[in-house]
């Protein structure tokens, strides 16, 4: 294909600009990572920008030795894994009948789902309802309110609708019912949409802040985000009773940076594996949703 000089300049300058923007997008992360690996004195003297100075693992070793942080971490991890699995299960159970023309209530329920998506209830009646069913100060509140999202439901339904009819008919002839159909044929062939929605649900549960803020009083049940918020706003990074940071090679700032990175490691770790799925999945949702 012929490309004129002007075209090349055009494409090259756009590419350069985008690379610059990508760099700017990850600079804040790099900055926090470097601080967490730098010595207290380098940080205090403003020597750290986006590369660690006087590399040390001291703030990290302090962080990973804190039992309360690990407790929050495993609580968050556990609720994310269980919550995501449960959410996919419940969403699939409703999305499947909604994708079937023979399901009589389908169109009525779909209208209801769309209404639930558009009209957000004010937070107070929501709070009173959730408290009313006994989820106040109950760690289950980290999972239960997230097990069905109308938007994700619609994405899954559109995906099921595309499912080739012939395959299902063949299975019906062999005498399998709807349940076997869903779990043995449809779901195993829906990996792309399952992976995408798993990511969507997992990110919401992992990152949730408002729900625990509203419903959890007991600090024992604080998930990671609440814990980090405490560290950031209360300046109480150092465990009560411990010596002050004067004797150590870390300070509040390096500790806080290490905690922030600690809390996003799992997301960064699974991100590359899911990326190819979620772009595809988000497209399914955006084009048809």
């Amino acid at each position, binding site marked *: 294909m012929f490309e004129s000089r002007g*075209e090349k300049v*055009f*494409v090259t300058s*756009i*590419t350069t*600009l*985008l690379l610059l*923007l*990508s*760099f700017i*997008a*990850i*600079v*804040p*992360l790099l900055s*926090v990572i470097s601080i967490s690996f730098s010595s207290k004195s380098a940080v205090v003297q*403003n020597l750290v*920008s986006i590369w660690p100075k006087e590399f040390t693992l001291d703030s990290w070793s302090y962080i990973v030795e804190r039992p309360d942080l690990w407790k929050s971490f495993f609580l968050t991890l556990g609720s994310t894994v269980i919550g995501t699995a449960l959410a996919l299960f*419940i969403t699939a*159970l*409703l999305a*499947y*009948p909604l994708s*079937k023309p*023979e*399901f*009589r*209530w389908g169109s009525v*329920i779909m209208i209801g789902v769309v209404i*639930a998506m*558009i009209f957000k209830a*004010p*937070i*107070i*009646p929501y*709070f*009173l*309802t959730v408290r*009313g069913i006994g989820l106040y100060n109950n760690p289950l509140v980290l999972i239960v*309110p997230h097990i*069905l999202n109308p938007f994700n439901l619609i994405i899954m339904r559109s995906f099921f609708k595309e499912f080739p009819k012939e395959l299902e008919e063949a299975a019906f002839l062999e005498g399998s019912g*709807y349940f076997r159909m869903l779990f043995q044929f449809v779901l195993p062939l829906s990996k792309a949409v399952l992976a995408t929605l798993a990511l969507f649900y997992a990110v919401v549960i992992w*990152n*949730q*802040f*408002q729900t625990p803020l509203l419903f959890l009083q007991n600090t024992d049940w604080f998930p990671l*985000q609440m814990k*980090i918020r405490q560290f*950031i706003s209360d300046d109480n990074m150092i465990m009560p009773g411990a010596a002050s940071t004067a004797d150590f090679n870390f300070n509040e*700032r390096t500790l*806080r940076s290490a905690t*922030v990175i600690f809390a*996003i490691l799992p*997301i*960064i770790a699974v991100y590359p594996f899911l*990326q190819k799925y979620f772009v595809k999945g*988000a*497209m399914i949702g*955006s*084009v048809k949703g």
Partner: protein
Amino acid sequence: MLKSKIQLKVFWPLYVMAIPGLMFLIIFKYIPLLGSVIAFKDYSVFKGFIDSPWVGFKHFQKLLDYPDFVRVFGNTLMLGFLKIVLVFPIPILLALMMNEIRKSALKKGVQTALYIPHFLSWVIVSGIVFDIFSLSGLFNIVLGWFGHDPILAMQDSAYFRPVYVLTSIWRDAGWGTVVYMAAISSIDPQLYESAMMDGASRFRQIRHITFPLLLPTVLVLFLLEIGNFLDLGFDQVFNLLTPMTYSVGDILDTYVFRTGIQQAQYSFATAVGLFQSVIGFILVFIFNRLSKKVSDGGLW
């Protein structure tokens, strides 16, 4: 009667499957939605949504009389306006630019870098932002290069709005491109081929093919954005606020949290929330009308 009996006999598994999801929708979506009636009642914890006494528009009147409310509403309008004008167009520009990268490895790298911030919680983002704007943070290091005195931006009400806009862009603009990229990828390649035959430059192709065909998607997303005009995101504002930035950063969401949850003024706070939803709905309605007039597109 007979027909529906047969229907149930054959298709009962479908109905059984739907039960858990429907229960969820009723409990977590519909009951709270209907529970909004307490904005017109004096809600008492012991009487519940239904038996609490009606008081008409009392709480709405109270809300308009509060000087606090007027300030908070003003802040919300201001941030909502900034979000529409400064944040909304960025993903469109980014998507148009990303579409021009022909090397797919490079494109993937750019996408990864721009998407990543979207996966961080606002607590984390605010942690990072507070660090960058701290006295010895990256922001002040850079200011120092230009011989500028350090600024405590997070404690200064003049910086709250820029910080709100910049963090919105940083976290979500990259992710916002996904929808537009999907729309661009569905454009017929033949259009570009014939444009090239006519000697149209890259820039002209963007202007006369990509952009016009992207407009319907832009319009739909714009309408959805307008509907959420006053919905600025509780997590973001709550986590970026400091006592010093209250005067410009306190919005309806944080106000509802304080009056409703912390001071237990349930009915009043619900009135504020309902006010917010109704204004959002009216805005969508008006803009939908307008967009139907200027083009064929619209939400309904």
